C-alpha cells in the first residue's frame, strides 16, 4: 500500500501528524480534539455551511472552517481562542433563533428528561414535545459544548406545515438547521437528486423540485437523508418516539438476494429499526427502502405468534411445545410418503432449509419438498439459474465499462445496485437499459431500448446477433435514434467493451417466453463475454437450491437422479434415503390427490384446506384464514436466531441474533428437529447452528466453512435441471366484448416468508401496489375509468377484476399489474378485453 505523505501541524500548541489531503477537522478528530460541527459528516463532502467548526490559522486571513480547509505542513491552528469561542457562540445563537430551543436551553430540561421513559407524558407535562429527537440531537451536544445559556435574538420561527403525507418518514423543516447533509447525501452519495435547497434568503428550505411530494419527485425512500439529519427534522415514522438505540447488531438483510449488511438498532429486546453497515463488499453504507424501513415492522408486528396452538373448530387451543410436537408427530407418523408435502420459503436460512429437506428425506422417507422460488420464476427457472454460471460480484459494476440492464427497475427494491449504477455512469460507464415501461433507469441511462410487450425476445435476439457480428457495424453510437438504430448502437457498445456486466431484473421473468428471453440473454452474455448479476428477489435462492429444498434436488444442488449421492446421503444420515426422482411440486397439488399432512414453513397456500387433511402452519404470523391451519407453530424471524444464507453473488453471509424471539417462538430448524425426535428419527440432535453447519459441510464439500465467517463469494456450479412450470392458467384467444388491451402481469417480489411487505409495513403499500393495474390516462378517459375504479379483464376462460391506477408513464393500449406468484395467466402478455365494472348501488 502506498503510504500517504504526512505533515506536521500544531493544534492548540501541540504538534500532531496528519495525512496530506486531510482537512483540519479530520486531523483534529483523529487525535480526539473536539471541534463542534453540525454540517460535517464523515460520509459526505465538506460543506462549510454551519460555520461552527471555524478555527484560527496563523497563516490564513479570516476564520476558515476546519471542515473545508486542508492541512498544510507547519500549519498553526487554534480551535479554542477567545475570538473563536465568541464568534461560535454568536453563530449558534443565530442558528437557535430559527430553531425551537426549549430542549437546548430551557432551565427545566434536566427535570424534563426524567419523564423521558414516557415520552408522550413529558409532552403533556412540559408542553414542549415538538421534536422526537431528544437525546439523539447533535445540536444538544454542540450547545452543551458552547455553554450557551440564552439566545438573545428574537425568535424567527418559520411556521412551516409539517410534511407527513409521504410514507416512512416525516419532515418538519421548522427544526431544520439547513446543514445540507440530506441534500448532499441525496445528490452526491445516492446520486438520486430528489432533495435540494429551494428558495433563497430567509425562505431557504429543503425540498423537492416544484414542491412535489416525495413519491412524485422520484424519492427512493432509502432513508439515507434521515440517517444523517443532525436534528429531528427528518424522523422515521415507525420509531420516531422510541428514543435512542442501546446497541446494534450487524446482520444481513432478508429482503432480496443482494444481501446488504445492516446494523439492527436494538433497545431492550426490541428491534427499533435498521441502518446500513459500512460494508465494503456489497452495499457500502447504503440500503434500499426495504432494508431501511421495512425490517422493524416486519419483525415487530402485533400479530406475531408467541405460542403453539391448534385449531379446534374456530377456537385456538394453546399448546406447550411438547404437546404441539406430539400432535404433529402423531399425524406425520400416520402419513405415507405420498400423502405428505412440505413447502418452505426461500427466505429461510441455510440451516432451516437443510434441516427441512433432511426432515422430508430422512424422517418422512419422501422427496416431497418444494419452495416458492419455483412459482416465482415459472417457466424460465432453469434458464434463469443458468445465468449464475456467469455470475460476478456486485463490485464489478464499479469497474465495468458497459452495463446492460435487462428488465431492471432499481427505484425501490435493488436501489443499492441503482446507486452503484449511477456512480458508474458518473465515472464514465455506458449504460443501456432494456425495459418496456418508464422506470428508474430510463433517465440516467445512455440508451433505453424500449420494446413493445411482445417484442422483448425479438429485441434480445437481434442484439445478440449484432453484437456477435464480425464486421464493423455501420451505425455509430447515436442515442435518440429509432429502436433499430439504438439496438445497433447498443450492440456496438457491447461488442467493443472488454468486460461488460449484465444486471437482470424481474420485468421479463413472468413473460410466457421467459425461457427463450433468458436463453437469448445467456447467448448475448456468452457473445459479449459479460459477467452477469441476476439480482434474485429471494434472499436465499441459492441456499434453497444448494440445501436441496426441491423434490428433484439433493443437497449440493445435485439432481435426485444421482444414485451415488443418494447412497452417500443415506450413509451420512444413517437412514435409507429413497431413490428415484419425484415429479411432485407444490403447484401440481390438487384437491384430487388430497394430502394427509401439508407442512408449510414460512409459506402460505391459498385454498390449502382443499389440498390436505391436516395443515401445519409454521411462521412468524398466523395463517391468513382460520381454515388454513390445524396446528400453528411460532417461528423466529431472521433477527432472532444465528444462521446463514447465500446471496446472489454466492456469498455466504450471517444472520445474527439481535433479540430473543417473542414468547416461545423457535427457529424453524429447532421446531423441525423437535418433531423429528418425536418421530424417533436419529440425526436431529442439533445443539445449535454450528452442528448443522458442520453437517452441511460434510455433505456438501463445496460449502466447507459455511458458518458465514468468511464472506468470500463462490462461483457455484449448479449441476441440476430444474424444470419450470409452463403455465398456471390458460386463455384462448376468443374475442369478447370490450376494449382490446394488452395485459402484462408481473410477479410480486417484495415478499418475506410468503407475505407481501405491503401487508406488514405501513407505508409499503404506497410503493408496492399489488393486485391493481396501471392504465394510461388516455385509455382510462376512453373507457370512462377514473383512479380507483374497477375493471374486468377477460380472455377466454381468464377473467379477473382489478382496481385501476392511472399512470402517465403507462404506454397506451397496455395495462400493467403485479399479482402473487402462481397467478400469472398464459400467455403473458395477454390480449384481453377491458370493461368497467359497475357496482350496483343500494
Amino acid at each position: 500500500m502506498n503510504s500517504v505523505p504526512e505533515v506536521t501541524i500544531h493544534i492548540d500548541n501541540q504538534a500532531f501528524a496528519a495525512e496530506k489531503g486531510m482537512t483540519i477537522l479530520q486531523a483534529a478528530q483523529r487525535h480526539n480534539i473536539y471541534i463542534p460541527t453540525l454540517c460535517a459528516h464523515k460520509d459526505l463532502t465538506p460543506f462549510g455551511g454551519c460555520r461552527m467548526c471555524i478555527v484560527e490559522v496563523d497563516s490564513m486571513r479570516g476564520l476558515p472552517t476546519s471542515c473545508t480547509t486542508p492541512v498544510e505542513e507547519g500549519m498553526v491552528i487554534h480551535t479554542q481562542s477567545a475570538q473563536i469561542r465568541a464568534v461560535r457562540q454568536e453563530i449558534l445563537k443565530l442558528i437557535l433563533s430559527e430553531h425551537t430551543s426549549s430542549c437546548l436551553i430551557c432551565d427545566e430540561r434536566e427535570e424534563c428528561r426524567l419523564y423521558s421513559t414516557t415520552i408522550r407524558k413529558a409532552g403533556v407535562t412540559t408542553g414542549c414535545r415538538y421534536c422526537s429527537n431528544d437525546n439523539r440531537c447533535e445540536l444538544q451536544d454542540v450547545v452543551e459544548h458552547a455553554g450557551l445559556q440564552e439566545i438573545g435574538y428574537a425568535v424567527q420561527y418559520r411556521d412551516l406545515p409539517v410534511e407527513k403525507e409521504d410514507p416512512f418518514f416525516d419532515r418538519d423543516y421548522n427544526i431544520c438547521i439547513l446543514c445540507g447533509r440530506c441534500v448532499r447525501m441525496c445528490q452526491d452519495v445516492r446520486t438520486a437528486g430528489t432533495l435540494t435547497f429551494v428558495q433563497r434568503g430567509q425562505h431557504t428550505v429543503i425540498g423537492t423540485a416544484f414542491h412535489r411530494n416525495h413519491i412524485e419527485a422520484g424519492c427512493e425512500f432509502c432513508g439515507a437523508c434521515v440517517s444523517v439529519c443532525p436534528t429531528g427534522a427528518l424522523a422515521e415514522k415507525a420509531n420516531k418516539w422510541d428514543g435512542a438505540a442501546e446497541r446494534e447488531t450487524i446482520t444481513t438483510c432478508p429482503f432480496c438476494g443482494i444481501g446488504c449488511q445492516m446494523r439492527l438498532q436494538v433497545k431492550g429486546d426490541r428491534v427499533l429499526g435498521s441502518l446500513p453497515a459500512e460494508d465494503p463488499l456489497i452495499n457500502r453504507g447504503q440500503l434500499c427502502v426495504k432494508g431501511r424501513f421495512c425490517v422493524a415492522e416486519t419483525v415487530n408486528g402485533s400479530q406475531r405468534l408467541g405460542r403453539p396452538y391448534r385449531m379446534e373448530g374456530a377456537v385456538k387451543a394453546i399448546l406447550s411445545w411438547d404437546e404441539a410436537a406430539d400432535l404433529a408427530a402423531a399425524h406425520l407418523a400416520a402419513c405415507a410418503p405420498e400423502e405428505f408435502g412440505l413447502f418452505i420459503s426461500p427466505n429461510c436460512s441455510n440451516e432451516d432449509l437443510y434441516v427441512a429437506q433432511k426432515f422430508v428425506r430422512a424422517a418422512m422417507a419422501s422427496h416431497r419438498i418444494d419452495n416458492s422460488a419455483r412459482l416465482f420464476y415459472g417457466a424460465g427457472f432453469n434458464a434463469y439459474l443458468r445465468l449464475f454460471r456467469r455470475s460476478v460480484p456486485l463490485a464489478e459494476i464499479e469497474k465495468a465499462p458497459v452495463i446492460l440492464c435487462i428488465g431492471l427497475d432499481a427505484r425501490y427494491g435493488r436501489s443499492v445496485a441503482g446507486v452503484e449504477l449511477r456512480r458508474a455512469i458518473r465515472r464514465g460507464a455506458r449504460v443501456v437499459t432494456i425495459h418496456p415501461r418508464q422506470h428508474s433507469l430510463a433517465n440516467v441511462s445512455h440508451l433505453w431500448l424500449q420494446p413493445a410487450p411482445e417484442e422483448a425476445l425479438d429485441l434480445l435476439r437481434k442484439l445478440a446477433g449484432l453484437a456477435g457480428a464480425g464486421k464493423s457495424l455501420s451505425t455509430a453510437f447515436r442515442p435518440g435514434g429509432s429502436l433499430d438504430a439504438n439496438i445497433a448502437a447498443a450492440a456496438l457498445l457491447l461488442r467493443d467493451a472488454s468486460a461488460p456486466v449484465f444486471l437482470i431484473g424481474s420485468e421479463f421473468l413472468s413473460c410466457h417466453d421467459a425461457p427463450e428471453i433468458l436463453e437469448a440473454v445467456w447467448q448475448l452474455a456468452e457473445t459479449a463475454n459479460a459477467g452477469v448479476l441476476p439480482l434474485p428477489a429471494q434472499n436465499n435462492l441459492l441456499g434453497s437450491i444448494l440445501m436441496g429444498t426441491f423434490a428433484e434436488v439433493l443437497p449440493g444442488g445435485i439432481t435426485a437422479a444421482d444414485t451415488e449421492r443418494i447412497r452417500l446421503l443415506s450413509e451420512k444420515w444413517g437412514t435409507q434415503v429413497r431413490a428415484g426422482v419425484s415429479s411432485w411440486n407444490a403447484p401440481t397439488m390438487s384437491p384430487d390427490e388430497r394430502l394427509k399432512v401439508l407442512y408449510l414453513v414460512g409459506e402460505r397456500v391459498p385454498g390449502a384446506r382443499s389440498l390436505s387433511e391436516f395443515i401445519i402452519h409454521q411462521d412468524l404470523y398466523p395463517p391468513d384464514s382460520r381454515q388454513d391451519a390445524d396446528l400453528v407453530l411460532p417461528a423466529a424471524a431472521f433477527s432472532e436466531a444465528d444462521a446463514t444464507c447465500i446471496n446472489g453473488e454466492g456469498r455466504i453471509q450471517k444472520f445474527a441474533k439481535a433479540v430473543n424471539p417473542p414468547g416461545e417462538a423457535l427457529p424453524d430448524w429447532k421446531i423441525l428437529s423437535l418433531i423429528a425426535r418425536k418421530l424417533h428419527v436419529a440425526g436431529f440432535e442439533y445443539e445449535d447452528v454450528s452442528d448443522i453447519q458442520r453437517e452441511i459441510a460434510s455433505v456438501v464439500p463445496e460449502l466447507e466453512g459455511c458458518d458465514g465467517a468468511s464472506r468470500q463469494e463462490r462461483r457455484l456450479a449448479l449441476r441440476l435441471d430444474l424444470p419450470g412450470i409452463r403455465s398456471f392458467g390458460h386463455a384462448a384467444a376468443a374475442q369478447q366484448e370490450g376494449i382490446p388491451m394488452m395485459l402484462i402481469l408481473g410477479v410480486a417480489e417484495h415478499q418475506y416468508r410468503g407475505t407481501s411487505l405491503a401487508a406488514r409495513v405501513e407505508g409499503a403499500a404506497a410503493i408496492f401496489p399489488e393486485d391493481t393495474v396501471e392504465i394510461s390516462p388516455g385509455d382510462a378517459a376512453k373507457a370512462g375509468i377514473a383512479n380507483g375504479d374497477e375493471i374486468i379483464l377477460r380472455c377466454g376462460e381468464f377473467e379477473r377484476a382489478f382496481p385501476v391506477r392511472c399512470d402517465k408513464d403507462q404506454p397506451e393500449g397496455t395495462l400493467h399489474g403485479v399479482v402473487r406468484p402462481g397467478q400469472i395467466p398464459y400467455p403473458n402478455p395477454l390480449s384481453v378485453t377491458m370493461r368497467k365494472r359497475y357496482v350496483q348501488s343500494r
Partner: protein
Amino acid sequence: MNNLETLRNAAKLQWEQLKNNPIPLIYVGTASCGRAAGALAILDAIRKTLEEKNLTARIVEVGCIGPCYLEPLVDIQLPGRPRMSHANVTPERARYLVQSYLKSDKPAVRLAIGHFGEDSSEFVQKVPRFFDLPMLKPQVRIVLRNCGFIDPAEIDHYLANDGYLGILSAFAKGPEGTIREVKEAGLRGRGGAGFPTFRKWEACRKAPGTQKYLICNADEGDPGAFMNRSLLEGDPHAVLEGMLIAAYAIGATRGYIYIRAEYPLAIVHLKKAISQMRAYGLLGKDIQGSGFDFDITIKEGAGAFVCGEETALIASVEGKRGMPRSRPPFPAIAGLHGKPTIINNVETLGTLPNILRNGAAWYTQFGVEGNRGTKTFSLVGKIKRAGLIEVPLGMTLRKIIFEIGGGTTKKFKAVQTGGPSGGCLSEEFLDTSVDYESLGAAGSIMGSGGLIAMDEDTCVVDLARYFLDFTQKESCGKCAPCRVGSKHLVEILRKITKGEGEPKDLAMLETLGDTIKRGSLCGLGQTAPNPVLTTLRYFRPEYLAHVKDRFCPATVCRALLEYRVIPEKCTGCQRCVSVCPTGAITGPRAKTHNLDASKCIKCRACYEICRFDAIAGDAIVIKSTRRASDE
C-alpha cells in the same frame, strides 16, 4: 481569407467612408438606458420624418456615451461638419432637429449641448466640445472609448478602431509575455476585490491539466450599477477580445460568458458579435494562425445576486444551484468541472485589449501607485449629473461627485460606494482617494463601481435597511451567519425605522454585523453588514435620534413623521381635502383646514397637492420632532 489585416483594411475603408459622409448621419443612443428614456420612439419619429419629408440620412445606432441625465441623445452630423449632440430629445424635438439640419440653411446648432469637432469651426457657434462639458472633462475614457461612437452590431467598426490589435500583440508576446505585460500594467480585478489579475492568471497557467476555462462574469447584480451592461451593449467586441487575450494567457480553450438574463439587449449584441468573430476567424481552431483554439458559450443567469460570487457562478454554469463553496481550492486550481478556471469581470476584460495594444507603460500613466488605470462608475442617486463615468483611480470622491456629478440636489450627506456590499461614507471622507486601499480603510469597498450620492433627504437608517433587505433576500441560505444574521439585522433596522428601537439595539447591530462579517462563507455575507456598520460609525447621532428621541432628521421614516397644516399659510382651497383618502383633513372653503393626526396615514397626497396644485404651496409640512423615548 480570414486574414485579419485584409479584413481590417476593408473595415477602415468603410469607416472612413462613414466619417467623410456624403449624406447626413444621425446617431441615436439606443442602449438600454437610451431606450428607457425613449430612444426607440425618437428613432421612429426620425425615420418617419425622413420618409415624410423625403430626406436622406443614415441612422447609426450607438451605445451609451455616459451622461444619463442627458438621455435621450440625438447627434447629427452634416457632410463636412462636426457631429452635434442634442440632449433630452423628445420625438417632437427630434422631428424639428431633423428638418432643421437637413432642410434649413441655418440648422438649429444653438440647441446642441456639445460637438465632436474643432472649436475653430464656425459652424459650432458657441456650443462647447462635448468632452469639454463639466461632466466629461475630468474623465479618461479607455474602456469606454468606443461607447457611443461605433455601432456595436458592426465588427467592422470595432476593427477599424484598432480592434483586435490587442490579441495580435498578445500572440506576438506569447502567453507568458502577455501575463508579464498585464503584471507590469498593474491591472487589478475590476469585479470588486481588486486582486491582481496577473496573479490569478499565473496560478491558473501553472495549474496542471490541459482543459482550462475562462469565464466572463457579467452577472452585474448591484442595484443601481450598470457599467458592465453599458460596455456590453456599446462595445461587445472589446470584452470578447479581452476574453481572447485572457484565455490565450492562461491556456483556456473554452470560454463562458455568465450574463444575467435581465440584460436581453446585451445578450443580443454578444450573440451577434460572437457569430461575427466566428465568421472572421477570431474563434474556433487555430485563431489567426496562432495555434490557439478557443470558443465562447453564453450562459444566462437566473437572476441571483450571489451568482456574481466566483464559486456560486461556477456552480450555476455547471447547472447546479448557485451556492458558493469554501476556498481553498481556488477556482484557478479547481473551478468549473474541477478544472482550472479564471473568472474575470467584464470591465477587466474590456481593459485588456487597451493594455496589450498600447503597452503597460502607457497604461501606468493613469491612476496612482498600486492602483493603475481607470475605473468605470455608475454615478447615481440624488446627483445632478447622473451617468456612467470612467476616471483614473486615485481621483477624490469630491471631484467625482462635485465636478463630474455637479453635486447633489440638496446639501450633500453621504455616498455609498461598492453597491449593497459597500459602505456609506460621510462628508469628511470626500477627499478620500478612490482606490482599493483607501476605500477599504474607510470601511467601505470599491466594489464593481456603484456610486450612490445622497443628500440630506436620505435617512441613513432607512438606507441601511434597504440594502440589508436586498442582501438578505439574495442570501443563498447556505451559511447560518448570512442567512439568519442578515435577517435579524433587517428586523432590528426595521424596528428602529418604526420608532420602536432601543439604545441596546445599536450594540446588537454591531455585534451581529461583526459576527456576520467574520463568520460568513462568501463575499456576500462578509460584506453584507457594511452599510449598517459604516452608517453606525459615521452617522451614529442619526441612529441615536431614532432610538432615543423617536426622531428622523431626514424626515423619511414614516412612523416618526407628523403632518401639519400651517394655519397662517392655509388659504382654505380644499384641494387637500379632496385628495385625502381617509378624511383626515377637514374644513370649509376659505377657512383654515384642520388635520386630524389620528386619521392621517401619512400618504403624502395632501403635501404633494399643496405644493404643486394649490395657491399656498407650502401650507402643509411634514415634520419629525424629537420626543422622549418611551423608557
